């Protein structure tokens, strides 16, 4: 190095004499150092795994806590094209019905009913209750039209219905 070239011969002599001296060995137990250093190098990956597991557990706990909380009824807001809010609609949380709560056939009765239907036909099906009948809308329009067909013509079936629709007569 350029700086070191500026040393005087006397300084170089001292430098050489000092350089010939050997530093006294340190009192470190070599084997113990190697053991401790090896342990330190192994401990680091363990810390990484422990940290990763802790973070994942925390994330899982937070996720479970958030999803188990009941969702409050919210309001959806709609915006028109010009950006103004036009209407809101209350959003009612969907409730999943309990299994078998509204079904006419519960649990293991289904298999028995199926066997009876296979053996006796549709007559084996249970009669609908009054509540279930009134709960339903009237039959399709074609059935109501069919009622208007004169009794005598009903035997013609769809032909009579077609005639009624095309001529508009009710005889």
């Amino acid at each position, binding site marked *: 190095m350029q700086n070191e070239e500026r040393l005087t011969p006397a300084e170089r002599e*001292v430098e050489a*004499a*000092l350089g010939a001296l050997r*530093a006294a060995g*340190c009192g*470190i137990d070599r084997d113990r150092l190697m053991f401790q250093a090896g342990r330190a190098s192994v401990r680091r990956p363990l810390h990484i795994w422990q940290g990763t597991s802790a973070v994942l557990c925390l994330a899982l706990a937070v996720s479970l806590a958030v999803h188990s909380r009941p969702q409050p009824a919210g309001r959806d807001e709609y915006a028109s094209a010009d950006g103004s809010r036009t209407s809101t609609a209350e959003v009612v949380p969907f409730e999943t019905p309990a299994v078998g709560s509204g079904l006419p056939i519960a649990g293991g009765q289904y298999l028995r009913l199926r066997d009876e239907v296979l053996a006796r036909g549709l007559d084996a099906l249970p009669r609908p209750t009054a509540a279930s009948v009134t709960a339903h809308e009237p039959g399709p329009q074609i059935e109501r039209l069919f009622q208007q067909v004169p009794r005598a013509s009903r035997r013609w079936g769809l032909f009579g219905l077609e005639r009624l629709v095309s001529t508009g007569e009710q005889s």
Partner: protein
Amino acid sequence: MGPIDPSRLSRWFDAYGAALSLYARQWLEAGLADDIVQDVFIRLMSQRAEPRNVKAWLFRSVRNAAISGLRSGKRRQRHEEQAAARRPAWFEARAEDLIDAATAQDAMMSLPSDQREVLVLRIWATMTLRDIAELLDEPVSTVFSRYQAGLEGIRNRLVLSCRTKND
């Protein structure tokens, strides 16, 4: 860079262990200096990746730890007590030495600490002036001035020692 291969520690210990211990003894007594050097080697192995310049990292870590240790009142008190009780040898005494080891140690101890530090790093740690400047966070010219002044101080001390012996 990946994790440090433990087998390399042995090589680093052989190459720098004694110089690191000598360096730490500029501030602390031998026992504490060795403790610090050992801790630094263990810390090196717990690093996620190998430092870019392992030698510079080791000397910087030892320097920081030694100065920190010196600042600790408890350690300073212990250091003073042990230093008063005995003076550990810095150099091995060998027949072929050009300077007596004990005389060299006396001469070194008489130097200002900043000059002594540069001498240790340049001669026994075989660091370049540029590396020393980087380690000490000083300009190279300042480091060279300290080095030159340290050599001059040792020479004067040795000349004085020779004159005293001859008289």
